């Protein structure tokens, strides 16, 4: 017989360890247990990659200017063996953008440099803009000169001020059918560049800027082209596609006055990509951090590169899903198809949201089952059959994406977050159950899986769960303890009370 003694000791140790270290983190670093008293911090990481040509190397990255709605907390760089110089944030020359310069005497091969910036959103904060000079007229070649003049002649009478002129021009450049002059000009200049030139022609101060969309968990992002127009002593942001937009707290201007984003000498094939994650951190810690950036907890996931952090935000939710599965299977007795398939489905629901996720999951599985019926006629070996199903699943997913995009349902695009190999296996398993045990069993197991996945999703999607799982990694010791405990539960499952209902 198994003795419960050592097991209980093990569970107790895990629980104590988890709770005590969580309490320690709470006391020492003021990480709150509840997500409520928090402020959003955006961590932005720019990753520079280039190929050094075995000689002296210099890389210059344009840094974002101070701007309204954001408070800069800290910035740092990671680059082995490079000398680094960052322009001071409080430098007096506001007309020039700040730059970060990396340099090295000799470097060869692939180089990776990091620039990491932490900002917090602050709706109250305003940064005074410096009035631009009235621009000189740009030089146009024929036939562009005539085309530009014609366009302006159409737009100018319809506008009241600088901003409405920019707006009218934006519309002219996008309204279908496209104006002949607009088409000609767009064949030479990009839309934001052209707008800036046209506005300069009309003596309106405007500039082509690049901005970073702040969305949690985005990786390998690039900058978006935007246009700014000067009016009423401030810059107004314009989307070169859809027209005027408010300067939102989700958009960080990065490149405004600098002619380049990244310039590398002594290297080739350079590129920059951005990763963004949001963290919720206590206001208290934030205020401390503005003075001293070294107060973050030592043993903390915050110290990882941002790209990895955003992965860990998801990874740390997995144990929660696993706990739900263990509980539902051993305590309740719900049948699922594939032990941890529901957790993976729940993880995809986190990206797709529940209802679109459920719909697209059912869609893929049912279409997949139909195609699988045909595949079974071909008498394939198992591995070949699964491989064929993987391709079928990818086919269905791309079809759904294209069709839903055409119909204007952007939600349909998130279908790509489903783990495709798992879907293929699920279809295969369901098909086998259908053949061997009938459709009833398919609905029991499929329904059970979706039910467990939904529960796991609802639990994982709680702000509190996300907060605890990421900010208190030690909480997973407690989850482990619970799973071990449930793993040794020898009592009846809830479903067995129904099964043995006639044993009286």
């Amino acid at each position: 017989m198994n003795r419960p003694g050592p097991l209980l000791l093990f569970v107790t140790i895990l629980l104590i360890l988890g709770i005590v270290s969580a309490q320690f983190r709470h006391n020492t670093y003021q990480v709150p247990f509840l997500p409520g008293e928090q402020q959003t911090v955006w961590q932005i990481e720019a990753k520079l990659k280039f190929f050094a040509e075995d000689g002296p190397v210099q890389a210059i990255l344009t840094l974002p200017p101070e701007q309204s709605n954001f408070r800069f907390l800290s910035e740092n760089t990671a680059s082995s063996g490079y000398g680094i110089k960052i322009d001071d944030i409080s430098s007096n020359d506001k007309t020039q953008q700040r730059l970060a310069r990396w340099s090295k005497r000799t470097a060869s091969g692939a180089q990776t440099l990091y620039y990491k910036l932490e900002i917090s959103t602050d709706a109250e904060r305003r940064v005074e803009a410096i009035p631009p000079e009235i621009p000189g007229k740009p030089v146009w070649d024929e036939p562009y000169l005539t085309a530009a003049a014609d366009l302006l002649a159409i737009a100018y009478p319809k506008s009241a001020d600088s901003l409405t002129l920019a707006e009218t021009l934006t519309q002219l450049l996008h309204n279908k059918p496209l104006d002949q002059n607009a088409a000609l000009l767009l064949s030479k200049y990009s839309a934001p560049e052209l707008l800036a030139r046209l506005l300069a022609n009309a003596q309106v101060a405007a500039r082509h800027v690049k901005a970073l969309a702040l969305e949690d968990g985005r990786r390998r992002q690039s900058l978006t082209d935007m246009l700014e127009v000067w009016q009423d002593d401030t810059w107004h942001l314009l989307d070169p596609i859809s027209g005027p937009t408010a300067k939102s707290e989700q958009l960080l201007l990065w490149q405004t006055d600098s002619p380049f984003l990244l310039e590398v000498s002594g290297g080739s094939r350079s590129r920059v990509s951005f990763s963004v994650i949001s963290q919720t951190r206590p206001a208290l810690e934030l205020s401390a951090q503005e003075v001293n950036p070294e107060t973050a907890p030592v043993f903390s996931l915050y110290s990882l590169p941002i790209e990895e952090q955003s992965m860990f935000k998801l990874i740390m939710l997995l144990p929660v899903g696993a706990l739900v599965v263990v509980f539902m299977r051993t305590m309740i007795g719900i049948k699922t198809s594939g032990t941890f398939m529901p957790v993976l489905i729940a993880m995809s629901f986190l990206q797709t949201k529940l209802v679109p996720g459920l719909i697209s999951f059912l869609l893929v599985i049912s279409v997949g089952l139909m195609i699988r019926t045909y595949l079974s006629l071909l008498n394939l070996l198992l591995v070949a059959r699964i491989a064929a199903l993987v391709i079928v699943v990818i086919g269905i997913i791309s079809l759904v994406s294209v069709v839903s995009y055409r119909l204007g349902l952007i939600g349909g695009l998130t279908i790509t977050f489903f783990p495709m190999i798992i879907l293929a296996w699920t279809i295969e398993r369901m098909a086998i159950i259908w053949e061997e045990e009938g459709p009833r069993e398919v609905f029991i197991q499929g329904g059970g899986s979706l039910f467990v996945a939904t529960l796991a999703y609802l639990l994982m999607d709680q702000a509190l769960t996300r907060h605890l799982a990421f900010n208190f990694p030690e909480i997973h010791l407690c989850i482990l303890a619970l799973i071990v405990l449930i793993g040794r539960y020898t009592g009846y499952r809830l479903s067995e009370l129904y099964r043995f209902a006639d044993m009286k």
Partner: protein
Amino acid sequence: MKLPQCANPISLNKQGILGMNRRNIDYISCYNDRQHFPNVDDKLKTKRIAQQAGVSVPELIMVIHTQREADSIAEQLTGINQFVFKPAQGSGGKGILIILSREEGLFVKSNGEKLSIHDLVRHLSNIISGLYSLGGRTDVAIMETLVNFDPVFNDLSYEGVPDIRLIVFRGYPVMGMLRLATRASDGKANLHQGAIGIGLDMAVGESIGAVQYNRPIQKHPDSGASLSGISIPHWRTLLLLAARCYEASKLGYLGADLVLDKARGPLLLELNARPGLTIQVANKSGLLPRLRKIEQIEIPASDPQQRVDYAIQQFSKRGKSADLFAQD
């Protein structure tokens, strides 16, 4: 909406009903060593070890290992009119093909369907490529002699194999039931597919009660035959065969599936390392009291005969259940 009727867990515990979690933790993982699982998962191996332990099994005619052997099966079949093809690692009765006779070069299945030699070759190649085995592993096909079922169960089973499941714990048979195929179970004797289970008194092999889908029934749903008053012939031999499977398989918690052949008597069909729990409903009693009794025995008797005697003495429901019969 009416809530489904449920049992009270305290009352279940009092009756000693074994649940899935306790079965897995306290019995299967404690008494069934993983290294011995192949003894029961591979029917070819089961057959060999059973014969070594003196347990009768349906006779093995041949083993088909490769696609090439399957292609040339026609020559091998000359003179054999009745046989069974089985996947060695199949589960739940999948992939079993029973041929009763030959007519004009065609093979007649148990349900009357006629197959050509090409159908047989395709079936064999499906078995070999792992269509019926767990996880789709490549398998071998077993060809064995047809069991001629003892006619006692003729009007009780629908098209299928009536078999007797005995739970054997540390070599002692503890509980048994007769399993009858139904139309719902598609000729298979698996309870969760809709087969009927009839609990058997351990002393004499007489029926205690019948269940389908975990609920008591009185009559066979297809033939309408009464399911009470059934008595199994060769009961003691059946118990003995099952008890010997402990030595053969080295598994402490075991389900033995046996059949009665007209000529040869009880034969072992297959062994199961994770036998189901519905047997308790069919027997109207829980497994736990019997299992605990056997756990108190320090060293199990080495003679299967002694273990059978013990089971007959200890686990009979007769005295207690006389009034139960009266109610029926």
